């Protein structure tokens, strides 16, 4: 689960990582108040989970309290914010910086270690940089049990070209980031940009985390408080409803709704739909522990008003006959207007075929054939 910037910065601050002075606001009045307290210019940042906030007009440097209030109104009640579901904004002091660095901690699956990535050119798309100039990325593997040792942090600090004083601050900061990574069971902690501030009158500069990204491993939720994420973490009501049921759900903008079992098979069905010239409306995982939830899954499929529902499974533990019974029940209860193409195979498939036929379907056994039929039906419905 990806946390909001303000939550990441809270976690950072608790572990000794310098972050800008800031206030979290939910009304335009609070934004104006924060601008007064922090002083102008200051930065008003929408708290949304999508990337590219700057380009989308969701972050702004404001020069006066009036401007802060006006922008706060646009975000929290006006057109810009509503379109992006902005409910909270973070107001921060503006940091005068001379350099922007990149710093993150993730895992190295092959070496079975944690992996720190750093780069002297921060503020950029790191994935793009990794592709175009991989030599610019500094890598340091960290043993997950021993933890980050100071020499490793020094290795990175000096490779980044920091002076003696800043290197010491960097070691402390990276220790805090390591602690965040471990304490929070993170799959990623990232500071981008990490500001090197402009030298003050005494010629002293400092490090400050300009942005913060903290992605908590969903599989560790049980030991991270275990709270079910609230609506604000999801793009849509359907995605939120699906998550409450424990059903993986993704929304696209095409015609065919996929009810598939198994992550790998779903990914391939998605490919095949595209190869055949079709498009996907949404995808619901109808396998694993969810194979008895056909009615709820189909209900969620129908929210996007798809042209066709395509069901493809090859179940072993998730038995084909039980899945077919669920589909039959869902059809009886929901009476979907769109056609359904079903390709349900695996344990108990003979019985599944009878059940599907009794429900008025024409069961198929070949994935590619099922995809072709769904694409043809979707095009017919469109014409």
């Amino acid at each position: 689960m990806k946390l909001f910037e303000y939550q990441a910065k809270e976690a950072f601050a608790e572990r000794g990582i310098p972050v800008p002075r800031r206030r979290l606001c939910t009304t335009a009045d609070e934004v104006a108040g924060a601008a007064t307290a922090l002083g102008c210019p200051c930065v008003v940042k929408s708290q949304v989970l999508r990337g590219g906030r700057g380009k989308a007009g969701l972050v702004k440097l404001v020069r006066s309290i009036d401007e802060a209030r006006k922008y706060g109104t646009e975000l929290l009640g006006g057109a810009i914010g509503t379109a992006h579901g902005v409910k909270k904004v973070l107001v921060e002091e503006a940091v005068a910086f001379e350099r922007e660095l990149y710093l993150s901690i993730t895992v190295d699956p092959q070496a079975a270690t944690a992996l720190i990535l750093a780069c002297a050119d921060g503020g950029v798309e790191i994935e793009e940089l990794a592709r175009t100039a991989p030599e610019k990325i500094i890598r340091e593997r960290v043993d997950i049990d021993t933890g980050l040792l100071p020499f490793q942090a020094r290795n990175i600090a000096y490779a980044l070209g920091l002076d003696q004083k800043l290197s010491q601050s960097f070691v402390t900061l990276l220790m805090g980031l390591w602690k965040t990574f471990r304490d929070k069971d993170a799959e990623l902690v990232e500071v981008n940009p990490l500001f090197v501030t402009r030298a003050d009158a005494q010629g002293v500069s400092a490090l400050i985390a300009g942005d913060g990204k903290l992605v908590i491993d969903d599989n560790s939720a049980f030991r991270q408080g275990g709270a079910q994420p609230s609506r604000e973490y999801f793009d849509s009501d359907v995605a939120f409803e699906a998550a409450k049921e424990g059903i993986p759900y993704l929304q696209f903008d095409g015609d065919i709704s996929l009810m598939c079992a198994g992550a790998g098979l779903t990914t391939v069905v998605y490919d095949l739909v595209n190869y055949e010239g079709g498009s996907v409306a949404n995808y619901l995982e109808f396998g694993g522990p969810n194979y008895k939830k056909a009615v709820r899954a189909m209900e969620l499929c129908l929210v996007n008003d798809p042209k066709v529902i395509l069901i493809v499974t090859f179940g072993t533990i998730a038995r084909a006959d039980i899945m077919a019974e669920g589909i039959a029940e869902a059809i009886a209860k929901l009476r979907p207007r769109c056609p359904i193409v079903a390709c349900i195979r695996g344990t108990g498939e003979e019985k599944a075929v009878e059940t599907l036929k009794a429900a008025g379907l024409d069961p198929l056994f070949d994935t590619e054939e099922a995809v072709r039929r769904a694409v043809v039906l979707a095009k017919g419905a469109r014409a």
Partner: protein
Amino acid sequence: MSIFIDRTDRVLVQGITGSEGSFWTRHMMDLGTQVVVGVTPGKEGQNVEGVPVYHTIRRAVSDRPANAAMLFVPPRNTRDAVFEALDSGIKKIVTIADGIPLQDAIQIRKAALSCGARVVGGNTSGVISPGFAMMGMFPYWIERVYKPGRIGVMTRSGSLTNEVTAMVVRAGFGVSSLIGVGGDPVPGTRFAEMLPDYQADPATDAVVIIGELGGTMEEEVAEAMLSGAFTKPVVAFLGGRTAPAGKRMGHAGAIVTGGKGSVADKIEAFEKAGALVADRPRMVGELLRQALGSTPRK
């Protein structure tokens, strides 16, 4: 002949008294696997399918030595269970758990590497040599998928394995040994680490790799081919060619990160190494024929 597991291995089942544990213990035994002992804390003295149950592995193996451990244990207890097996010197471990915490998976793989053990999984159906033995949950009675033969299969995805292996069988081939490395971002065993076993296995003529976007496991196989460490024909099928960037739409491991792991990268690596790459499941059978000559060897 098989790799990883055969009928001489003595398998211990952790979590044997649970519904999955007992159900698949019976099927493992029906296929010919020697399940010698089970472990569930608090259940010593019971037996499952005639297999005696003990509180701990230490108590179990002192009565009935085992060299392989099959885990039917929930993800949050998997690290504990794997370390318990390693502590008793067991070197072959399979875990099916779906949802192992990421940082636990790092610790599990690190521990396995440091003591020369092999942990397969999690998030997998396991390992099977059709007609011989299995550790995991495979419906081997579905003949059109699990027909014995001479093709090795390695896969990141359980659901896709059935789909693709059915095409291998439809083309007239069968399966020698199938290793499900699993769909997690940090699998205990990686594709390339199993290649020496397939290379040495006289019962395997070629290997099918069922991969997907994300990570670098497919690229590592291509490297082993280029270096000459693996010389048998490889046919690869990769899911996620059209997956939208940045959306996690499948396994946790199936996401492009650090500028690495796109399907295009993997295809390029495989083709450079001389592997044949199928873009649809059906093509896997055709490409195997092309690689091995038109008549499958019996």
